[in-house]
């Protein structure tokens, strides 16, 4: 009975007893959920337009953030460093398309997946040689991001909202909206979607595969930079950040590999649920640190009922 009480009653009693703490937990979860969603968004974009499962997205986040901080350390002013980092990400997109993807067009999915793991290893080695492996501070204040916090008092309790987190959420929202506008309203955006629907049909109406792939990898690079700034200002910049890439994978499973909505909703859900599970069930009952696997198990359970994820395209199989 004791164990049932601990699982089914005590956590909820705790939540009701301290609603401000629950809100704090949910807010923290929401913020990390936004970042998971951003990484997942990079995956989804590339997957939709090329069916490549881009494992390197997580390392691109680290690489972008490191480039930004590294350039600033060399004495480049913050905003020029941002522009230069974007140029570096563009160069990266072009060289990945030229050197890696073009010779591998038409290969089985798993080969392209392996190639992105190769890119990941290359970027890890390259980044560590150039920027060093130690943890660096993100140049938050130089970029003009406010660093204070709001202290609210709901239900007579205490709720602390960091300015960095609020900025991250707002910037992420703006990014998602502009991305949706870009995909739905512009010529290039429509071309990306057409390529995602059917490669050959898109090629036959004159859409250039190479241009679109470079474009998509560049957009993924921009998303990576934004994610890198947001996450880096919370935890510092180092290659330890790559673990968050593993957090984005269950988000993809949960939301569906092709769906932008799925990436966002999946990211927010996983961010909040894993924090709640860790605080109310994981830490007291299982010895903590459950965040490493909770998202995966949750996604696995959802997948057993919906094999294409919550928002993924229905899988139609023909013989």
């Amino acid at each position: 009975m004791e164990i049932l009480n601990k699982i089914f009653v005590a956590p909820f009693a705790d939540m009701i007893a301290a609603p401000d703490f629950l809100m704090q937990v949910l807010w923290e979860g929401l913020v990390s959920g936004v970042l998971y969603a951003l990484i997942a968004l990079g995956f989804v974009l590339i997957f939709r337009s090329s069916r490549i499962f881009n494992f390197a997205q997580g390392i691109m986040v680290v690489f972008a953030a490191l480039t930004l901080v590294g350039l600033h350390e060399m004495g480049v002013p913050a905003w020029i460093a941002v522009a230069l980092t974007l140029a570096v990400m563009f160069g990266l997109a072009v060289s990945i398309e030229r050197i890696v993807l073009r010779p591998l067009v038409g290969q089985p999915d798993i080969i392209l997946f392996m190639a992105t793991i190769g890119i990941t290893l290359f970027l890890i080695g390259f980044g560590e040689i150039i920027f060093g492996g130690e943890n660096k501070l993100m140049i938050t204040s130089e970029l003009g991001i406010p660093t204070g916090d709001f202290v609210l008092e709901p239900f007579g309790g205490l709720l602390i909202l960091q300015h960095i987190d609020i900025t991250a959420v707002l910037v992420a929202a703006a990014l998602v909206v502009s991305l949706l506008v870009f995909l739905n309203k512009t010529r290039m955006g429509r071309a990306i979607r057409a390529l995602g629907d059917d490669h050959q049909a898109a090629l036959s109406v004159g859409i250039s595969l190479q241009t679109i792939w470079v474009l998509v990898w560049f957009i993924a690079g921009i998303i990576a930079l934004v994610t890198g700034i947001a996450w880096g200002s919370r935890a510092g910049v180092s290659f330890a950040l790559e673990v968050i890439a593993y957090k984005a994978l269950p988000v993809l499973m949960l939301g569906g590999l092709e769906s932008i909505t799925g990436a966002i909703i999946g990211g927010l859900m996983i961010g909040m649920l894993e924090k709640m599970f860790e605080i109310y069930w994981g830490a007291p009952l299982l010895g903590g640190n459950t965040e490493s696997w909770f998202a995966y198990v949750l996604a696995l359970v959802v997948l057993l009922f919906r094999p294409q994820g919550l928002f993924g395209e229905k899988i139609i199989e023909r013989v």
Partner: protein
Amino acid sequence: MLYRTAGQFKTSYRADQALFPIKQDAFLLGVILICAWVVFPLTASEFTFQTILTPILIYSLAALGLNILTGFAGQLSLGTGAFMGVGAYACYKMITLMPWMNPVIAILLSGVFSAGVGVMFGIPSLRIKGFYLAIATLAAQFFLVWLFEKWAWLYNYNASGAIQVPNLDMFGLYVAGPQASSMTQYYVVLFIVTLLTYLCINLTRGNLGRTWKATRDMDIAAELIGINLMKSKLTAFAVSSYVVGVAGALFVFMWRGAAEPNLFDIPLSFRVLFIAIIGGLGSIMGNYLGAILIVGLPVVLNTVPSALGIHVESALLEHLNIMIVGSLIIFFLIIEPHGLNQLWRLIREKLTIWPFPH
């Protein structure tokens, strides 16, 4: 010329279906086996055993296990490292609970536990396919490593949280632990690897192997011709996890000597996956070629600068290593996406008809 097959007639179906229909193949295998069993042990130094011979064998066994699942049955798995961990921890518990047990038997039995866990995590594969399944196997990866860390019973409530291999003897000869000699360990590993490879070759050529291949090529079509998908997929998970588990037990007991939970983390899974893919999915020999490349490469890269008389800092060298391995993976995927095994097959084809072009 060396590979000329003219004059080798087959007069029965049995001879036609033999494991080595061409004499030269059997001869080559004989040479490799003699090298592995006699020549290498006689000539190798302690360093060679520890850094090249034993790890290559263990990694190729792990890749063989993964290849059965991914290459033969078509189920992509990213959780190999964790299943190796299950094998290692199972072996450790058996040895410490029953110290009288023969170590080789314990290692072979430990695979049974990882096979059980593998089947459990294989159940979702009945509904989930492709990349979704690959990410689902990551659930096993992260959950199991977390379990190794939190479940103190597994490491006998050790303060360090790591498992230490005790001295184990078999017929008066130390085979594991600090006192065992590298050569003995090499022979134990070689024996188990040879045995399991032999079993796997025959398994993949037989009825079960053909069901796996049908499932890999198109599972709905396989179901339509009367293959029980559940049986096919779950046996693939079971056999694969068994082999991987044995490789994990060997990894800790015959090579590392001690293990922490994070040893079985995702980089290990990826390294095994690299070996399987660079070697060639759906091949047995490819695993050995891949392991030679992936295990041998860092050793070579480490010795090159000192041989040339250039001093390079070890941290820089390590990063360069990662970078070069990453680029080589891409390079090999571009020149031959079907792996080193396919490369060897092409060379053999050319040799058979040499010096004529057709």
